């Protein structure tokens, strides 16, 4: 039969010589290999102190965006909920009242906006579906929680801090200030 590749190496099945049967030399060789590993660099990332950086395209926890005036972008159109293959997004719309123009960008806004992080598969389709630049996937991931309820993130958890009134907190959330 013809070999598929020329990479195969014939196994040496000749009987062992006396020195090979003695094992000791090969054992010492092996021990030298393990000994040399004592001086190798450890690839371990010491997690809570050291964090490995995610790539810029990492799809992590969602954030709800605001515009430059600090108003919520989301208009509760529901396109993200429709696009979501895991059906993790729920929302309720409400009409903007007189005097709330500084809070919401358009006449309609999301009164309730919830993402169930246990259902979410972090595919990023909501981000693609959003016509208002309202939802983005950030570079953090959902931390552990004790209850299932704790994984249902509501608007307070998702909205980014107000650019105008809460600049330091925003910087902290972005990870600029540790």
């Amino acid at each position, binding site marked *: 039969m013809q070999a598929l590749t020329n990479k195969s190496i014939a196994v040496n099945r000749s009987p062992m010589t006396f020195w090979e049967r003695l094992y000791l030399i090969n054992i010492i060789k*092996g021990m030298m*290999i*393990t000994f040399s*590993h004592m001086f190798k660099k450890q690839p371990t990332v*010491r997690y809570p102190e050291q964090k490995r950086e995610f790539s810029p395209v990492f799809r992590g926890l969602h954030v709800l965006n605001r515009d430059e005036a600090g108003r919520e972008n989301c208009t509760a159109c529901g396109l993200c909920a429709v696009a979501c293959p895991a059906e993790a997004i729920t929302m309720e719309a409400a009409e903007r009242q007189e005097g709330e123009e500084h809070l919401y960008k358009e006449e309609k806004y999301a009164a309730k906006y919830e993402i169930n992080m246990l259902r979410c598969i972090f595919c990023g389709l909501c981000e693609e579906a959003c016509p208002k630049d309202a939802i983005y996937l950030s570079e953090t991931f959902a931390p552990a929680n004790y209850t299932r309820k704790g994984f249902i993130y509501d608007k307070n958890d998702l909205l980014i801090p107000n650019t105008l009134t809460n600049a330091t907190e925003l910087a902290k959330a972005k990870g600029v200030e540790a």
Partner: protein
Amino acid sequence: MTLLALDWAIIIEKLILIVIIVLTTLLITLYTTFGERKVAAILQDRPGPNRAGPFGLLQPLADGLKLIMKEEIIPTSASKWLFILGPGLAMTASLMTSAVIPWGTEIHLFGRTIELQVADINIGLLYVFAVVSMGVYGIMIGGWASNNKFSLMSALRAASQAISYEIAMGLALIALLMSTGTLSLKTIVADQAAGHWWNVVYQPLGFLIFFICAMAECNRTPFDLPEAENELNFGYHQEYSSMKLGFYLFAEYVNMIMSSAIMASMYFGGYDLPFFDETTVAPNIAALIGIGTLLIKIVLFVFLFMWIRWTIPRFRYDQLMNLGWKKMIPLALFNMLITGAIILSKS
């Protein structure tokens, strides 16, 4: 009234020495378990335990606490007294070896000369042998009393392994005794310290045989067949929990330290620091240097044990028996023959 005529001070002195030796051994053992994990980690490019305390130094205490806090389970079908006796026996037997090891020369304290050896018996080596073979009873009784076929199988393995390797070990020792001419460990060490070469120079093959057999006696990898996880689940301590399991695991490490101490004493000059004249310093300081030297030698041996463990895979059972009966015993006999011939030609 002859009882009262005894030198009571010597009894107190020996008692204190025993307590110190046992406690130090246990403490060192505690940190040997830590060392094992660290060595394993470093050899495998990992950091090892580093969370509990600085550099993870409190890890053994946490391990011990965890073992003590665990629920103690005695299986209903187990033979209760033997089940409890097993780990105790394993631990006692491994600690008893420390009695004849000369930890140093002697210390002068309060106008007394204190020997740093619990018992200088003239058949020290035979005593070591007797105690070491008792260690296997701990494993056998534990495996038998568990009433579990895997435990029993492992106990049988341990017993046959210990018997096979004890023969080669004894034969290697006989060659050593032929060249030293004494059974007393103290004299053997003193002879080496008195300016002779270390015994390993005269008995390199004997040392190799003894070392391999000691590894087998301690049930260390590559000879850890009694607790071969993939074949026997967990071996003889499968049914054990809590501190009884801890005792078994501990006894293994105590055994390791004791065989290191014995190897250091018999083949590597014990407390003798090479190229150093002990008479140039005060006798007490010389004794302390001696203790330190022996400890360093023990640590090196223990490291060697660990290094081998994390390098070599386990033998198959037939390979183990082949090595024991067909290689080690003839080799030991050959070593004995050569030693005898050389001694004869010299005299």
